[in-house]
């Protein structure tokens, strides 16, 4: 599967004037998205959208306008429109199940993002939303790969979106998934405490089987559920044997000491001289960060440049042509992606 157009709305300068060298720091350990003006979303539609739907549709529309045809929309989002969900919940309690306004309810469903993209662009093709927490985007990606096997000439929009809402922020905070002490930039990786920094974002890709014009091929994906770091490392070795060699390792490490053993076990197991990269200081932590990591990998291949803050090891001298991406959701859900630069 080849990536063609891509776009990303994130806490950093990734949309419009892209600048990966300058890091925007988190505020109170939250990296919030920099929202654009959304000039191509009609006001009458924009008025009903919550943040997750806005950043999803906002990232998707410029791609769809450029694409010749689109056979479907495949989205991964663990939480969808959670802010609307809470607004509706508040109404239920506040008005004691009286007459309530339906907009929050309609917008609260996770499939509102894919549905609104379909509605806004009158796309009557395949339309699906995967919500499997830390593997929501990965399942969307696998779905796209299978759809492309069955429909060789098709082109799909693939995306991953998650927002920081007051609701999920509080639940994650109570669960101890965010750091209590303030932390910024790459200091995240030296932390010896529980939790990470919160993030949100949306990344969208136009994908098909055509290599011409693409900079990145997704060769393979593997997903895993386990609490055993040795099992993850063994599975990764097998994945690397089948799909490697890779000359860079892109790690989803997030500064949480509870999850670090998984990343470390895999890193220790890797052979050869792979460059080591990480990205959570740039995106923050949320269930769909793999989508943003994929967008970054595509950008690295396209520009043949990787800003130094992404390197955990000494920056590579040779251009990087293949990346092995490992990301873990809370040490319970794991994914490996094999990514290759397309040479033209």
């Amino acid at each position, binding site marked *: 599967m080849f990536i063609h157009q891509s776009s990303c709305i994130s806490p950093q300068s990734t949309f419009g004037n892209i600048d990966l060298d300058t890091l925007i720091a988190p505020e109170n350990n939250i990296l919030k998205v920099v929202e654009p003006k959304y000039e191509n979303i009609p006001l009458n539609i924009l008025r009903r959208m919550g943040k997750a739907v806005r950043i999803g549709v906002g990232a998707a529309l410029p791609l769809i306008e450029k694409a010749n045809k689109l056979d479907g929309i495949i989205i991964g989002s663990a939480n969808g429109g959670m802010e609307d969900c809470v607004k509706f919940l508040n109404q239920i309690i506040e008005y004691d199940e009286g007459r309530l306004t339906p907009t929050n309810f309609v917008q609260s469903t*996770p*499939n509102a993002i894919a549905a609104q993209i379909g*509605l806004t662009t009158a796309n009557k093709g395949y339309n*699906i939303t995967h919500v499997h927490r830390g*593997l929501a985007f990965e399942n969307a990606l696998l779905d796209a790969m299978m759809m492309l096997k069955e429909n060789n000439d098709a082109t799909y929009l693939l995306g991953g979106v998650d927002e920081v809402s007051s609701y999920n922020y509080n*639940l994650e905070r109570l669960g101890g998934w965010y750091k209590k002490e303030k932390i910024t930039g790459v200091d995240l990786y030296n932390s010896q405490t529980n939790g990470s920094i919160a993030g949100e974002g949306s990344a969208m890709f136009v994908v098909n089987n055509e290599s011409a014009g693409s900079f990145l091929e997704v060769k393979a994906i593997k997903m895993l*559920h386990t609490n055993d770091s040795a099992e993850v490392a063994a599975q990764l070795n097998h994945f690397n044997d089948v799909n490697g060699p890779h000359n860079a390792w892109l790690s989803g490490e997030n500064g949480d000491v509870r999850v670090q053993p998984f990343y470390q076990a895999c890193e220790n197991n890797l052979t050869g001289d792979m460059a080591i990269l990480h990205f959570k200081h740039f995106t923050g932590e949320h269930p769909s960060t793999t989508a943003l990591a994929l967008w970054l990998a595509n950008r690295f291949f396209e520009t043949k440049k990787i800003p130094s803050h992404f390197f955990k090891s000494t920056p590579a001298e040779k251009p990087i042509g293949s990346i092995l991406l490992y990301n873990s959701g809370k040490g319970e859900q794991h994914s490996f992606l094999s990514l290759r630069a397309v040479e033209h």
Partner: protein
Amino acid sequence: MSRVVVTGLGVISALGDSVFSNHDALVKGTCGISTGELVKSKYTESLRFGEVKIENEKLKSLLGISDPSATRTSLLALHALNEAIKDCGLDVALISGYDTALIGASTVGGMCQTDELYLDAKSETVGSAFMASYDCASVTLFLRERYGIKGVTNTINTACSSSANAIKYGTQLINNGYAKRAIVGGVDSLAKFTINGFNSLGILSPGFCRPFDKDRNGLNLGEGAAFLVLEREEDVKNKKPYCYVAGYCNSNDAFHPSSLSENGEGPYRAMKGALDLASLAPAEIGFIGTHGTGTENNDEVESRAMMRIFEKVPPFASAKSKIGHTLGASAAVEAVFSILALQHGEIYPSLNFSNPIESTGLRPVSVTQKLNLRHVMSNSFGFGGNCTSLIFSKA
């Protein structure tokens, strides 16, 4: 390519807690809809629901679950999953392997604990036992852990067509070599959240829902779960499968966030796409398990779309007239009903129908009849224009 066959079924609905009891009720034309008894809402007694009349504590003891974080949604799902796994006869050691996929679907997830969610979203210090159980994925993760399933695990939410897409995704995983077998299905439980959501849209019937009737006035919400075990036909030597998955198609109506276009473009494309994938002519479909919610919009649009495809619309019925709209579970539960129709060579009635919609004149099946079936279609359409049709055929 080896066909994907259905080898195990499990279901729990307002009609019963097993495939056997659901089948018995379908044949008798029983209605499972009644005033609420267990769900906590202002509307419990004034509205009617397709409620499973088993309390959470009873479900827990039946299932041997003591986990305080297990929600009703997870419990209903486990009940149906256990039955499906037992029914397919596969060794539990095989189920837990890397080549077994588990695909769940839900729209409510753990939000059936609506009041606890409200408190947890605001709490400054400590959360409830349900803190990690509100999302839809929590249900599938709960099921995965019970059997230690190691293959591709996923949760899908496309509103009311969710579990149809779980069946489709599981079939594709097998076809593409990502799994040898897939356990697929869906679940939803009644929740204050969805009762008020559908009420705010004004599409809940004050009485019993009347699918396809001229005077229909809305839907009844229901709850339940169903799972299907899918295997490769070549792996199934010593048992007779129920049927095979012949066709599926998911298409978007792209018209309105919560209602269907007049012409039913999404439903039309879903049904047409499923027929094309199955290489079937419309006339070969012997029965349609319709989406048939009983709302003014759905039933008329679905009728029109059926009339566009079928020169003569085959016998059809709405299971929602007996179990209510079980949302994320509906496609899987109704797929089980369609498969039972195929297996037993019979079609089951739609209830509460008196007069056809004037513009269509269509009448659903009114009494249980014997009918030799080869191919059945099952429709599910959801908010956001998500439309999916499935076709099951005799193996």
